[in-house]
């Protein structure tokens, strides 16, 4: 039909260097750190205000208070009720977000540069003088409880929740999702939110990241105007010491009628400060980080069991999980589990090929500039530096550190970070269809639990 015109892969041209944008830090006398990332070509400005007020800062009896506090902030200020606050921001084309993770709370917006001052003023008003309206509190609390119900109806999110619950011991806060459980959220009062805000929304540990099109001195002056006379210092976060929920075992979460099984196989992984962080990235890229990875090639492209399979780490201030993740049609649940477990074991017993190692490094190094195309993406990139106290040259040296990962480092990462004796093998699916086959794999003690 057509002729072979260009049978060979064309040679690459001369690479052009990319540098992560330069940024500078200023500090207000009350402790607020301002990170300025000017981007000449940007037509937007992004502001991210970070506070040490995430779930790690709450006490366990009030699980979910950080998330609810963050959500309630957008419901207005003493001056503006919820609707008036939404109108004031949206009139400027701004949608203010406020959310929390384990390691921080973040209030943020993106705007056309001419609205930077007005946006900052509204953001500061929201953080410093929140309305915490009683009716809005009840509404958002009920919404959060309903969200949990909705999440549990989705097999993937149910699997994520149940994996955490089983991977960590009950005395480790990470055994629940950061936004809390129905029991802890049900117990929250408006006073708990007010208390969390009062104690933890304090300038001493606050960071303001501004990226995009702005004048540095004017922006600092604007932050000074809005936050300069804010005072106080919070206790910060508690230390979380992760404990495993048990040894190697199989948990089936029964979801009758499921046409697929959601699978999670893994255990506790690494924290954000782990010296094996870069080898861990390379290792998990090879095993399950790309379309061409071992897991995806085997389960999808050879066997057709799934739409996709991957694995990865979730590093936090303390160790988050490492897991392999996929969803497979019900009748191949057991063989898929066997494949996942076998591939994780092979990763630590058989040396990686040089070509795989090169591929994973080249991929991660190559996609580096793609991660920072947007103004908001660059502002987000400053967050780990601010929140975890990484070196200022973290992104400048990032690719060199990836390139430096050699066969020995990646092999020891696999041996140390994949622990077959501790694997939690979890399936959310129809137990009546999958139990016998999974049991026959004889991978460890098996428990069938109802979906919560």
């Amino acid at each position, binding site marked *: 039909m057509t002729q072979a015109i*260009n049978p060979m892969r064309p040679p690459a041209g001369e690479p052009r260097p990319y540098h992560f944008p330069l940024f500078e830090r200023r500090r207000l006398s009350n402790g607020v750190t301002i990170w300025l990332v000017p981007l000449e070509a940007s037509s937007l400005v992004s502001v991210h205000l970070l506070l040490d007020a995430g779930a790690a800062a709450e006490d366990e009896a009030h699980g979910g208070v950080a998330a609810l506090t963050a959500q309630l902030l957008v419901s207005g200020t003493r001056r503006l009720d919820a609707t008036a606050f939404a109108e004031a921001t*949206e009139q400027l084309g701004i949608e203010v977000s406020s959310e929390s993770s384990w390691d921080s709370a973040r209030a943020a917006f993106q705007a056309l540069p001419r609205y930077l001052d007005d946006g900052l003023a509204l953001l500061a008003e929201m953080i410093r003088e929140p309305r915490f309206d009683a009716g809005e509190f009840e509404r958002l609390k009920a919404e959060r409880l309903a969200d949990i119900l909705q999440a549990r109806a989705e097999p993937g999110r149910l699997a994520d929740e149940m994996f955490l619950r089983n991977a960590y011991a009950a005395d480790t806060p990470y055994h629940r999702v950061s936004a809390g459980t129905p029991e802890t959220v049900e117990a929250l009062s408006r006073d708990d939110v007010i208390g969390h805000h009062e104690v933890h929304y304090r300038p001493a540990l606050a960071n303001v990241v501004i990226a995009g099109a702005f004048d540095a001195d004017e922006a600092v002056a604007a932050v000074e105007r809005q936050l300069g006379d804010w005072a106080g210092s919070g206790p910060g976060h508690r230390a979380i010491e992760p404990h495993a929920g048990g040894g190697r075992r199989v948990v089936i979460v029964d979801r009758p009628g499921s046409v697929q099984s959601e699978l999670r196989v893994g255990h506790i992984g690494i924290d954000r400060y782990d010296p094996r962080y870069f080898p861990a990235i390379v290792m998990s890229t090879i095993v399950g980080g790309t379309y061409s990875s071992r897991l995806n090639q085997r389960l999808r492209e050879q066997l057709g069991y799934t739409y996709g399979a991957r694995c990865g780490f979730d590093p936090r201030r303390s160790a988050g999980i490492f897991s392999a993740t996929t969803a497979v049609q019900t009748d191949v649940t057991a063989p898929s589990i066997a494949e996942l477990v076998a591939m994780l074991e092979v990763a630590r017993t058989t040396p990686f090929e040089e070509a795989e190692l090169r591929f994973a490094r080249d991929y991660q190094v190559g996609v580096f500039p793609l991660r920072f195309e947007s103004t908001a993406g660059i502002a987000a990139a400053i967050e780990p530096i601010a929140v975890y106290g990484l070196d200022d040259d973290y992104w400048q040296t990032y690719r060199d550190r990836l390139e430096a990962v050699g066969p020995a480092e990646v092999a020891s990462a696999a041996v140390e970070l994949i622990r077959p004796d501790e694997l939690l093998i979890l399936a959310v699916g129809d137990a009546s269809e999958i139990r016998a086959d999974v049991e026959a794999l004889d991978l460890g003690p098996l428990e069938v639990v109802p979906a919560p």
Partner: protein
Amino acid sequence: MPDVHFDRHLLPNGLRVLLSPDHRAPIVAVNIWYDVGSRHEKPGKTGFAHLFEHMMFQGSEHVAKGEHFSQIQAAGGTLNATTWLDRTNYFETLPSHELELALWLESDRLASLLPAMTQEKLDNQRDVVKNERRFSVDNQPYGTWDEKVQALLFPDAHPYHHPPIGSMEDLDAASLDDVREFFAAHYAPNNAVLTIAGDFDPPEALSLVERHFGPIPANPAIPPAPDSTVEPLLGRELREMVPDRVPLPRVYLAHRMPIFGTPGFDALEVAVDLLAAGRASRLYRALVREQQVAQDVTSFAFPIIGGAAMLVIWATARPGITSEQVEAALVAEVDRLASEDPSDEELGRVRNLHAASVESSLERISERADRLSMYGCLFDEPERVNTEVSRYLAVDAGRLREAAAASIRRDNRLVLTYVRAEGPELGA
């Protein structure tokens, strides 16, 4: 206002080429839209356009199975493809010194896909796509909603009667002959728009495009788009109740509307934002915040071009609230669009949100390339990438009310309600 610079070229074989240089970062986006989507599928072959898209990653004469992905990723790029009702797009973003790699891979499969096709690959991707359907439709709460909306808004034989994912039976029926026939009919340079955006030299890029795509022959007999003519209104209210594995009821209101690219579509796009963009929107304010009958609200207009487009609005009930209560509240707000003019402040709000959101999307070269290809492919007017915002801003209260009165009405409404299924048949 967006100001995307680009040049357009036409190869002798009919390939339309759009070049939009931007040297901020050493990266480049390659994006191809083929003028073929699920609406071009034959009866009994639903899901085929999408399955075919998967086959485009199974190798071609000089590229092995999986190599398209592995070559781009090894070069430090990202890539994917999507199939929708009207079109199929394929795209790569990668370091700019590897531009030719993306062009070579795209051209090789367009020039010589068929020699690489085997039954084994087809069977494998059929299994993958069936798992994609299980994952996104069959095993998800509310997962069947768009299948139901399309089936009820469009008559049986209409090209939009089914979504791109297709049915399990039809996927089972797909054959290698179908692959050959579909490829021969629709995959030709004169049925595509190729956009390159980012860090490249336009004359050099054009000569690379000529080198790789130039020798691929045109198809002089591209089948015409299927007849998508449909009455602008449903003519009556349709209702369907779906028992599903959902904890909370959800009500969808779906309407036929003027197609993408028309002033009527623009006006209803503004209406959609008045309803549910942001926390000051009408539905969020009324249903979520004030009446507290809904957990969340969503609305959007499908940008499709055959016969009629779709305007869909939904709300999920709060615990303890019935679907009837949610429906009544939704309908009250939605009907107000046709009876009451929005204030200047309200229009100003959605205009500013829209302008900021377009600005933000266009920061990424992949999105810029995709929009250029889209306007090039659907309208042969890539310059719409720069005028789309002003079309939106030009919608005034009068046009809005007129458009709402014409489409958002009871005799043009499908009410699709998901309720919690009881008993063991739950997951059926």
